[in-house]
């Protein structure tokens, strides 16, 4: 990896360069919660001042720019009983500024499923390759357990990655595209002091995480398959699906056909779904393979912490804790994993 040092003033110039050239998505404060804490989202911005890189976390992940909540897969036009199909892929370039390590790691996990060697998705790949990603290091967010699932450090999946050294940024360059864009502004080679400061910041960040025991979790999930823990938490679950909506790695979906009012056109629409919804696994004829909340909640965790590990040697969860924050019933991954770990110790 190549590294450069970028002054704060040059960074402003750099962002303005992007703003003048392309659509820029960045963390933006959208309000405050009931306790006065600022709320952020990844949204399109027009000016440098709209961007708040000191944000702790965003309510939604940035996955919507790669896997939109609703996407037209194809449209069909009907003419004299004959139908014809059109497919379009999104190609407009876009830049996302200020993604945290967990969200970039989430994209790498999505890449495995959606851009891997089994039916790669042109819809996803087209969006992914047309998105320029600038990540940034940050202090751990409240509740986040990314370190426990190995998602607090990121070594690829981005174009540039910034670490704030107070008066300057330490920049990791991971693509030719990133290298070329960075050449438009003044940078310098890192000195021994820059390297030292960078490593100090990384150490400071790494030391702040609260530990979460995830040792042997895939096997534990199998042993705890009939555990009372699932019922305890599922009894509170409202099956609203919010956890999947805010999750940076949940990718499951449903397809529905939408017909225009004049019956001249129909669209095959992909809409992100949630495994917590009642009809998630219901088949024609009415049989439901996951009729109760307990089973559905369990399989969300099963997929993230066991199934994905089996397939890709790593959990699907990146520990961003958005699901825990958004849940109206107070269901959260740290407490569930904690309960599973301690059930046999009591």
């Amino acid at each position, binding site marked *: 990896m190549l590294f450069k040092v970028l002054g704060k003033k040059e960074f402003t110039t750099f962002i303005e360069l992007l703003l003048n050239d392309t659509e820029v998505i960045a963390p933006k404060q959208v309000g405050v919660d009931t306790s006065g804490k600022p709320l952020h989202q990844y949204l399109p911005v027009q000016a440098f001042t709209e961007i708040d890189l000191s944000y702790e976390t965003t309510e939604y992940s940035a996955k919507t720019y790669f896997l939109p909540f609703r996407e037209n897969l194809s449209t069909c036009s009907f003419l004299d009983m004959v139908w014809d199909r059109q497919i379009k892929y999104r190609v407009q370039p876009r830049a996302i500024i200020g993604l945290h390590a967990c969200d970039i790691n989430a994209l790498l996990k999505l890449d495995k499923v959606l851009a891997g*060697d089994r039916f790669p998705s042109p819809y996803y*790949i087209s969006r992914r390759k047309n998105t*320029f990603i600038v990540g940034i290091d940050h202090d751990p967010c409240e509740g986040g357990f990314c370190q426990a699932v190995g998602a607090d450090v990121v070594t690829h999946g981005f174009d540039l990655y910034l670490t704030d050294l107070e008066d300057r940024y330490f920049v990791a360059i991971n693509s030719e595209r990133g290298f070329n864009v960075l050449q438009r502004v003044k940078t310098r080679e890192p000195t021994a002091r820059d390297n030292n400061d960078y490593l100090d910041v990384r150490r400071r960040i790494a030391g702040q995480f609260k530990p979460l025991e995830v040792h042997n979790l895939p096997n534990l999930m199998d042993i705890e398959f009939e555990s009372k823990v699932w019922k305890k938490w599922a009894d509170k679950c409202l099956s609203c699906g919010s956890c999947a909506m805010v999750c940076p790695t949940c990718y499951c979906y449903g397809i529905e*056909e939408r017909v225009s009012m004049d019956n001249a056109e129909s669209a095959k629409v992909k809409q992100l779904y949630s495994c917590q919804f009642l009809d998630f696994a219901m088949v024609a*004829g009415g049989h439901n393979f996951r009729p109760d909340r307990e089973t559905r909640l369990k399989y969300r965790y099963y997929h993230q912490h066991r199934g994905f590990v*089996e*397939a890709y040697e790593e959990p699907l969860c990146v520990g961003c804790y958005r699901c825990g924050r958004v849940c109206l019933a107070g269901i959260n991954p740290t407490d569930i994993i904690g309960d599973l770990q301690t059930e046999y110790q009591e």
Partner: protein
Amino acid sequence: MTSLFRPYYIIQESEMAQPLDYNRRSRLKHVDQVFRSEIINIIPLTDMEKLFQLRILDGAERERFSFLPGQFVMVEVPGYGEIPISISSSPSHKGYIELCIRRAGVVTGILHKTRRGAVVGLRGPFGTHFPIERMRGNHILLIAGGLGLAPLRAPILNVIENRTDFHDVHILYGTRQPDMLLFNYQYEEWNRISDINLKVIVEQGDESWTGPVGLITDLLKKIRLEPLETYAIICGPPVMFKFVCAHLQREGIPMDRMFVSLERRMHCGMGKCCRCNIGSTYTCLSGPVFDYWTVMNLKEAI
């Protein structure tokens, strides 16, 4: 000033320009593109099920389309939706494929109302298949319950076409009532012409029913097996294949010589939508055909 980012056009990738072939799973392709297919014949089987014969309209696409017994296709009726259906015809048959479809929901409902000549979309084939090649030189048990005969018909026809490769072939088929029997016009051919031991049983007989009444396992008990030289394919509801497999296991057939086909909700067929997950195994990629050992290890399967 030149633009910072050159747009990436995925349609310019050479793989995208290749003819559409779902058997090349690792290749980039228009995953939502369909083979336009014409319904050439509709054969009513029972009150609930019809057999649809579909021909891919484009000659080159039709020539390229190939599948193995046990695989399925996604059938799309534009404006209504898309559903997974297992293929009921023989893989060696090139001109058209046959799909046995029960009237159960929106898409199957409109298919049952549609007439010969209608054009639908077809994607596939998807999923795993019954390893018929591996079964050569052995006895074959083909066991179906209810609608399970639809996916089982492909391996049945495949075995019949290669009858000399196998020793004894048994087809056991059970339904609830006699009027629910599928493909009853073909039993004679399978039984007599193809030298196959075909036995049909129903749970409840009616006035005209002269055959045996009971469960499919009753038929199984009457067959003398050579367990280490036998392969079994079982298609039917979970409760049925669970009992059948347990029986066969007691008889000594190894679990990796028994194959079942599982049914799940599917929206993509390509391991993306997660709707068919059993635990976290994709039925569309690792299934729908599984050996029984794998099924035993899928906690949600039965």
